[in-house]
């Protein structure tokens, strides 16, 4: 397999000729992008002289979302300031409103999968405290099933950054993190949300402890009829049928710290989701209605030893995932998987400028699926080493090597190198770059699905490169903070597994058939301004992504150079928030450009934008804080479909009453 030629590399067709007003669009996007870049880096030029007095701000004061010190690999965070007002939401809403990851949603609280940097859903790995949550059967996760209230923050590792966690996450890794606050004595939250379409959500959280022990308990329960009205293909208004759901999550976490040296944690999280799957717009027959019950149990135990020159992490986790799918009288199937995940990591920094982090991961998966011929297992052992080396105080480099042994077969080594350069001592500006090779092993469904699975599939391969810069600036008094990030990425995937119709059989079978080139630019800009006791903030994320088919898979194939289906070229979202007198207002805007529905790019879902707004007021009472919040989603009442034939709700409302104990005002 030859690497792509320079011609291919430069072959970034900005917009297909079939777009209306191509030039105008192009100008608009260019302008948008230029303004973005100029604004982001303005303080760098304007304040170059004045920065002397603002240097070396303590890390914790910087409300940074873009991680500056990244050893050449891009990471960003979504913290509790975004999550807290949306406790009743699921991960799919958070990511589509606040990240550049495109979420393909089949409807309100229906299946939601991701496309991260123009890759397929299996190329995004979701972790919970470092534990893989992707199904070993599907290799992907349903984002609508992860409730926001079950984690405290999330970290996004872009592209090759994910190699420090796993192989195969060509798009990246999303890590849901829960962490203790050792200063906490007692903190409780009680929240009740009443929303449109008979949706009720209850959240209860309690954190108790002292400086060496913390316990977190979280519970959420939600029911919804979800019978929103929509227009069907004849223009008639229909109320969504067979769409109710009921879900709950309960989790318990213990954190124990011994002499600031030994850290233990034990976490258990159980989710149960029982939902009906609404039919498409063009189906009128309800005798085949579908329903799905999922339950998952995740348990993880961590031990961390922190010494001056070295750290040791030992982790063991069990993940059980069960799905029961029913389609009328036609299908009744159960899928059960268990994963036993183990990790040992060692970190040694006894040599000057050098940190060495070797480690071993061992995962065993068991799958008992109605669609497999018997129980299937998979053993994955990975040997891992990461080395970080600093050249002076301006250049940081890292090298990651990962070698995996899957059921006795070694997959070729997965290497990644990254470098970060900070040209100035007093300006928080960093340039970073990385190169990586990566592999993704076929999922168990790809290999063992009854009659269709292909045990001879090869791993998917990926070469990627990235170049980016990150900048932030903060005034001494914290009154103004700006950060900007701009990254270009280039990722070439070949031997990509696609389920293809067969000439010799009516069954579709997975084949190592596709070759995809994904390249693009991500830009982010966050600004915070405190003025006259107003707290203003603006967050923007933009992703330009061309992800194209580069190889034909059948005769007369018409997909070469065409954008992958359901991968938008432009994704943009912005959040403006304003706070004063304990009132807060948050306005979120997200724009998704056209998504093609055919590999020949001759049919598409038009672009749309969605506005959501949240108003709230925190009332500081004697022993607690009472918070009232009104959320209006799809403010402009747009009649839209994200996926063809899957209706989405029009304007809808959610009212939340929240009790925070003890008196703790919103961050």
């Amino acid at each position, binding site marked *: 397999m030859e690497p792509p030629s320079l011609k291919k590399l430069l072959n970034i067709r900005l917009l297909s000729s079939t777009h209306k007003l191509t030039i105008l669009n192009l100008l608009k996007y260019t302008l948008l992008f230029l303004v973005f870049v100029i*604004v982001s880096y303005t303080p760098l030029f304007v304040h170059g002289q004045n920065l002397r007095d603002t240097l070396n701000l303590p890390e914790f004061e910087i409300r940074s979302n873009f991680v500056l010190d990244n050893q050449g690999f891009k990471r960003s965070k979504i913290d509790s300031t975004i999550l807290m007002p949306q406790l009743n939401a699921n991960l799919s809403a958070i990511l589509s409103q606040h990240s550049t990851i495109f979420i393909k949603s089949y409807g309100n609280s229906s299946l939601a999968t991701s496309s991260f940097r123009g890759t397929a859903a299996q190329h995004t790995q979701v972790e919970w405290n470092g534990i893989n949550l992707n199904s070993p059967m599907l290799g992907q996760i349903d984002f609508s099933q992860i409730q926001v209230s079950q984690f405290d923050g999330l970290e996004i590792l872009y592209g090759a950054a994910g190699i420090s966690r796993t192989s195969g996450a060509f798009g990246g890794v999303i890590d849901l993190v829960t962490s203790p606050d050792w200063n906490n004595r007692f903190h409780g939250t009680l929240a009740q949300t009443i929303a449109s379409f008979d949706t009720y959500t209850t959240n209860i959280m309690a954190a108790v402890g002292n400086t060496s022990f913390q316990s977190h308990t979280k519970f959420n329960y939600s029911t919804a009829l979800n019978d929103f009205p929509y227009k069907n293909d004849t223009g008639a208004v229909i109320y969504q049928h067979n769409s109710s759901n009921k879900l709950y999550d309960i989790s318990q976490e213990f954190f124990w710290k011994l002499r600031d040296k030994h850290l233990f944690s034990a976490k258990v999280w159980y989710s149960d989701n029982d939902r009906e799957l609404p039919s498409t717009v063009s189906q009128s*027959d309800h005798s085949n209605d579908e329903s799905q019950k999922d339950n998952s149990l995740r348990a993880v135990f961590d031990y961390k030893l922190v010494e001056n020159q070295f750290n040791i992490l030992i982790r063991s986790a069990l993940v059980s995932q069960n799905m029961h799918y029913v389609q009328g009288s036609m299908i009744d199937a159960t899928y059960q998987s268990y994963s036993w995940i183990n990790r040992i990591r060692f970190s040694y920094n006894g040599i000057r400028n050098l940190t060495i982090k070797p480690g071993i991961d061992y995962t065993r998966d068991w799958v008992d699926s109605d669609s497999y011929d018997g129980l299937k297992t998979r053993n994955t052992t990975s040997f891992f080493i990461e080395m970080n080396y600093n050249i002076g105080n301006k250049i940081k480099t890292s090298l990651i090597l990962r070698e995996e042994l899957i059921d006795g077969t070694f997959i070729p080594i997965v290497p990644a190198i990254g470098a970060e350069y900070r040209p100035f001592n007093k300006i928080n500006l960093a340039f970073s770059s990385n190169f990586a090779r990566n592999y993704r092993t076929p999922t168990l469904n790809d290999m063992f699905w009854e009659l269709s699975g292909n045990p001879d599939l090869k791993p998917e391969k990926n070469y990627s490169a990235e170049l980016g810069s990150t900048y932030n600036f903060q005034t001494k008094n914290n009154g103004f903070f700006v950060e900007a990030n701009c990254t270009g990425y280039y990722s070439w995937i070949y031997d990509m597994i696609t389920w293809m119709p067969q000439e010799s059989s009516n069954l579709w079978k997975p084949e190592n058939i596709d070759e995809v080139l994904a390249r693009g630019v991500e830009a982010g800009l966050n600004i915070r301004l405190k003025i006259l006791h107003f707290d203003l903030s603006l967050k923007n994320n933009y992703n330009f992504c061309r992800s194209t088919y580069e190889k034909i898979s059948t005769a007369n194939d*018409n997909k070469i150079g065409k954008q992958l289906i359901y991968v938008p070229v432009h994704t943009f979202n912005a959040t403006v928030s304003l706070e004063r007198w304990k009132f807060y207002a948050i306005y979120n*805007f997200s*724009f998704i450009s056209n998504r093609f529905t055919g590999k020949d790019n001759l049919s598409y879902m038009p672009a749309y*934008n969605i506005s959501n707004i949240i108003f709230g007021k925190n009332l500081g009472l004697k022993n607690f804080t009472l918070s009232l919040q009104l959320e209006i989603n799809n403010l402009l009442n747009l009649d839209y479909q994200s996926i063809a034939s899957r209706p989405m709700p029009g304007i809808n409302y959610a009212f939340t009453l929240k009790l925070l104990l003890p008196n703790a005002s919103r961050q």
Partner: protein
Amino acid sequence: MSKLIHYIYIFLLACPIFFLSLINTSCTKDPVRQQVIIPPDTTPVPATYENGIFVVNEGNYNWGNASVTFLDNENNSVVQDIFMKSNSRGLGDVAESMKINGNLGYIVINNSNRIEVVSLKDFKSVKSISGLNSPRYIEIIDSTKAYVTNLKNNISIIDLSSNEVSGTISTSGWTENLIRFDKYIFVTSIGVFSKPSSLRKAQIFVIDTQSDAIVDSIETGKEPIGIVIDKKQKIWVLCSGGYDNYEANSLMRINSELRIVEKVFAFPNSEGVPSRLTINNSGDTLYFIKGGVMQVPVNSNELPSQPLIASDGRLLYGLAIDPNTGHIFVSDAKDYVQNGTAYEYNINGTLVRQFTAGRIPGSFCFTKKDAR
């Protein structure tokens, strides 16, 4: 203070990004629905649809993108998505087949669970027949009624004067293709959809069209998907052997009078699943797809080893013989996620023309010659 003004300035400078984006998309007031990019051809909408060939494009399951492509014999042009053009709405989800009765076309839409009855004058829908059970194929019995096979439970009887379901014939399972012999209808039955082949009873039901009752049944190979009748009134049945390769696929000949299997041709290579059994207008040559397009004279004693039309890497999906010309129409569904191509070959298997169709072109429907 000057610094402060500076920060405000930067903040305000950042706002245009926000407003630019608003301007950019403020036009999306129309419902966001799937759009088809029509190539910049100016193919005129035909005056009538009474002389030509319809290509029924199934569309993807659950994507709601079924369509009909029309090959206009008058203007020798190809018009895409004619149902949408005439009715300003999509055809639905998985258009399985189409039949013509007089000046009306009956398009069977499986997953939308309806039949669109269209006028051949303007292709406007005159009726949407509902109350079906996942319909597959329609056969016109006489001027008063038609039978519709269903994936589940029964065969629906359509009253052609009101175009409504007037009754059902219980079959306790999936019925697929059907043909007429004398006053009987022979219907292939695959068994219960949700069961594996070993538990599906494959048979042909013989239905008396006067009493609408099943009067007989004939056991066949697994998954009898195709049925035709030849010039000697022999019935031919194509059996795929089961989606799970339960048994070898086969072609059977049935004596229509005695209702017994007279002959079974088992395919030597069970790999390539055969499909789309069809017969020419004179009733002397069978055609079906097995890799390529196979041609078998009805008096042949063996199956051909080579296809008449090789697949050449295409995924041949739909097949029909133009009753007016005897030409072979075959479609390439490609990878099912892009528009397909339809091909017209003459009787000798020489390519006459090819044209673009819609998503997953699966069946063809020809207007009658006397309609010209």
